[in-house]
């Protein structure tokens, strides 16, 4: 029963002014709305089979191997190419030119000619060319010492050191995953209508899941050939807790700012889900039990989360304390025995705990309520462009600026720190980068991510125009304002589409942008290596292929062992 029907106030969505701050976005955790658990639930519910196909790996694990993901209507195949890589060639930088393994997610089952063609291209990654039969292109490097340790252990008939398993957490880490038409692969339009891939990044997530399968099989394959008499298979529990690592940097950071409609849909789904749960009048016994159980698992998960970064270490310590506080409060007050229990839990977190604990509480509240939450995954894609409404009156656009960009109008850009940085595209790798405006060249080629500054320019121009005139008259004279005018109009329709912070300020932390996006992917245990890039792990703790059955419990992404 909704809380309103039981006589309680209705809780609305948290406003964009609260949610869309970098500090909060940088505190997000994955939830059941995230794209990895969403994929896992679909594969389970629809009984997908994930199995190894052709294996042309040599005893050292070099060669190629194919994995098939077979669903009710279609099959997708990961073609993995594994090669020997010298220490000098191994780099996680996007500028690297060779990798331990390269991959193509193929639409259907590849013929020998497809594999041959891709063997000439996939190992070259960006330097190769591809066809619309390829949906995703990616590559990964071994976590060398851990990879070797696992192989050696298995070959000797032992399991790998659990301390290393816990501290490393993956056998390979991806350094790029490309989709949507890059280098000739399929455009998003090829798969956008397919139910299994219509959600955001589902093809990319399937690709990474199959890479995980490949890495788990690869260590066993090498160990088996190295010592056929003594080798042992990797224990199921160890397999399950190993994921795929990733190093993510500035190349991904502007995405949140350049896709306002898509980001709105992601955040709006999460906020709607939270409001739905908070508005429940009573807790079912199983929901209450799940909250308590998942809180305990999340505490264990956080206890395992160790990073070198001083800022994040402090936040993790505070989060651990906050989760203890939350446990204590629930135990002392038993909110499940009272009306609107989930709203009470959220309000306690909001009033008493830090932002990391608040956002982890959101994950906890959503997890046992799949019936309310999961349908919202269907709303998380986007097709709308930033359409410019030329026939809007100047007065109306002024009003939209006032309503949605008051935060931007307050920034003093005469103060140098307010625009000490600029975003640009690097000549070296055609990737977004962040420069220091007053120290480096290139600000004349700045990317249009100075949203707040552009809004101020628009507001200034609008002051000169008659309120009853149409915006088109402003943009005919000042076409450089068309983009920001369209953005204001778009954000007015999609209020969670704008980050309410200055992305060129000296104190902007791009790693907060990364964490928000990666949390929506389903990544966890963020391990910032600077304010501009982070390591993460994907699919750690996720079901193994033979566990993709409807009877298997849903994967809670913040379980312990999700390294």
């Amino acid at each position, binding site marked *: 029963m909704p809380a309103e029907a039981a006589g309680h106030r209705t809780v609305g969505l948290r406003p964009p002014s609260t949610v869309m701050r970098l500090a909060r976005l940088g505190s997000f955790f994955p939830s059941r709305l995230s794209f990895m658990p969403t994929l896992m639930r679909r594969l389970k519910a629809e009984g997908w089979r994930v199995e190894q196909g052709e294996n042309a790996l040599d005893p050292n694990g070099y060669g190629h191997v194919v994995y098939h993901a077979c669903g009710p209507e279609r099959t997708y195949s990961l073609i993995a190419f594994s090669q020997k890589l010298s220490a000098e060639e191994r780099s996680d930088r996007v500028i690297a030119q060779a990798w331990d393994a390269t991959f193509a997610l193929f639409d259907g089952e590849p013929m020998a000619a497809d594999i041959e063609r891709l063997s000439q291209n996939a190992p070259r990654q960006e330097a190769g060319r591809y066809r619309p039969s390829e949906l995703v292109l990616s590559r990964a490097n071994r976590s*060398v010492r851990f990879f070797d340790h696992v192989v050696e252990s298995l070959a000797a008939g032992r399991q790998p050191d659990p301390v290393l398993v816990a501290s490393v957490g993956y056998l390979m880490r991806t350094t790029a995953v490309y989709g949507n038409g890059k280098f000739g692969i399929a*455009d998003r339009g090829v798969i956008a209508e397919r139910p299994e891939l219509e959600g955001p990044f589902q093809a990319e997530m399937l690709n990474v899941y199959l890479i995980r399968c490949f890495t788990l099989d690869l260590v066993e394959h090498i160990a088996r050939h190295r010592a056929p008499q003594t080798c042992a298979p990797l224990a199921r529990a160890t397999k399950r807790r190993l994921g795929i690592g990733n*190093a993510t940097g500035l190349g991904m950071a502007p995405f949140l700012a350049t896709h306002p409609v898509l980001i709105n849909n992601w955040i709006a789904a999460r906020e709607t889900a939270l409001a739905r749960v908070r508005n429940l009048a009573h807790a079912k016994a199983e929901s209450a039990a799940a909250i308590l159980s998942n809180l305990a698992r999340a505490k264990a998960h956080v206890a395992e989360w160790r990073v070198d970064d001083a800022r994040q270490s402090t936040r993790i310590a505070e989060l651990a304390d906050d989760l203890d506080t939350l446990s204590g409060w629930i135990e002392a007050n038993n909110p499940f025995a009272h009306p609107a229990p989930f709203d009470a839990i959220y309000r306690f977190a909001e009033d008493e705990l830090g932002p990391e604990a608040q956002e982890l509480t959101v994950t906890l509240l959503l997890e046992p309520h799949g019936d309310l939450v999961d349908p919202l995954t269907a709303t998380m894609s986007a097709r709308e462009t930033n359409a410019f409404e030329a026939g809007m009156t100047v007065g109306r656009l002024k009003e939209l600026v006032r309503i949605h960009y008051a935060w931007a109008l307050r920034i003093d850009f005469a103060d140098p720190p307010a625009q000490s940085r600029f975003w*640009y595209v690097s*000549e070296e790798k055609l990737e977004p*980068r962040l420069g220091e405006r007053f120290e*480096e060249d290139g600000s004349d080629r700045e990317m249009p991510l100075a949203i707040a500054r552009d809004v101020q320019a628009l507001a200034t121009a609008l002051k000169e125009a008659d309120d009853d005139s149409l915006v*088109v008259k402003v943009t*005919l004279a000042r076409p450089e304002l068309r983009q920001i005018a369209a953005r204001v109009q778009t954000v007015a329709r999609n209020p969670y589409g704008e980050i309410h912070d200055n992305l060129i300020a000296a104190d902007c932390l791009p790693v907060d942008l990364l964490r928000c996006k990666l949390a929506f992917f389903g990544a966890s245990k963020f391990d910032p290596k600077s304010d501009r*890039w982070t390591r993460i792990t994907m699919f750690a703790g996720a079901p193994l292929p033979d566990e993709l059955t409807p009877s298997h419990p849903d994967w809670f992404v913040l379980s312990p062992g999700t390294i």
Partner: protein
Amino acid sequence: MLSLNEIEGTVRKAAVGVGLAYGLASEAGRAAGWLAAAGLPALTLSADVLDAVASGDSNPGHAREDENGWTIVGTDRPLCPFRAGVAACDLLNAGASRITLKGVLLPVAAIGLFTVVSTVPRLILSRGDRSDGASIATGIVTVPEADPLETGWAGPLDLMIAGSDEDTPAETGLKRYGEPADRARVLSTGIPDEPEAMVRLKRHIAKTLVPASDASRERGAGAGRIDSH
């Protein structure tokens, strides 16, 4: 073969490189996607348009309104179809019923814009040099077979654009561009590369790029010796 995303992204970035505002460049990219899906040489057309912008051989023009509607006119050079085309689309979307573009370079490029930017349900385009022209509805362009977009719309020429409530009569001898089936086909097969045009467009894109500095390399993802495990 190229993807639609590559076509759109390449033209968008090149348009920024020659100095088009981002809001215009993104529309030019979308227009190029339509041209490619319609089977037209999108990269060559776009490169021709952008080369003319870069060399000063086209003009953004300025818009004026009188009793006959809006006119966008250049000075001593042909109108840039991307700049004038976006302006015309915006005017149409804001309620203008008649617009004349005087002396448009490569009007076929502007037609791409009318299909993706204009929200007017049906447009009639009349050519200044002939009595017939094109009609545009729901992203589909119809022209006389004798005057196909491939050869007949090179310009410079005047374009008169007007909204229309009338359905196009089911005439014979018409050629249609931009059918959904065309788009589905290029999605499944890819789009033939236009290497010479790609080189020209990349030259413009290069003007948007910033060389890496040692500082930027040190700050990038995976920077330094990463194999700590």
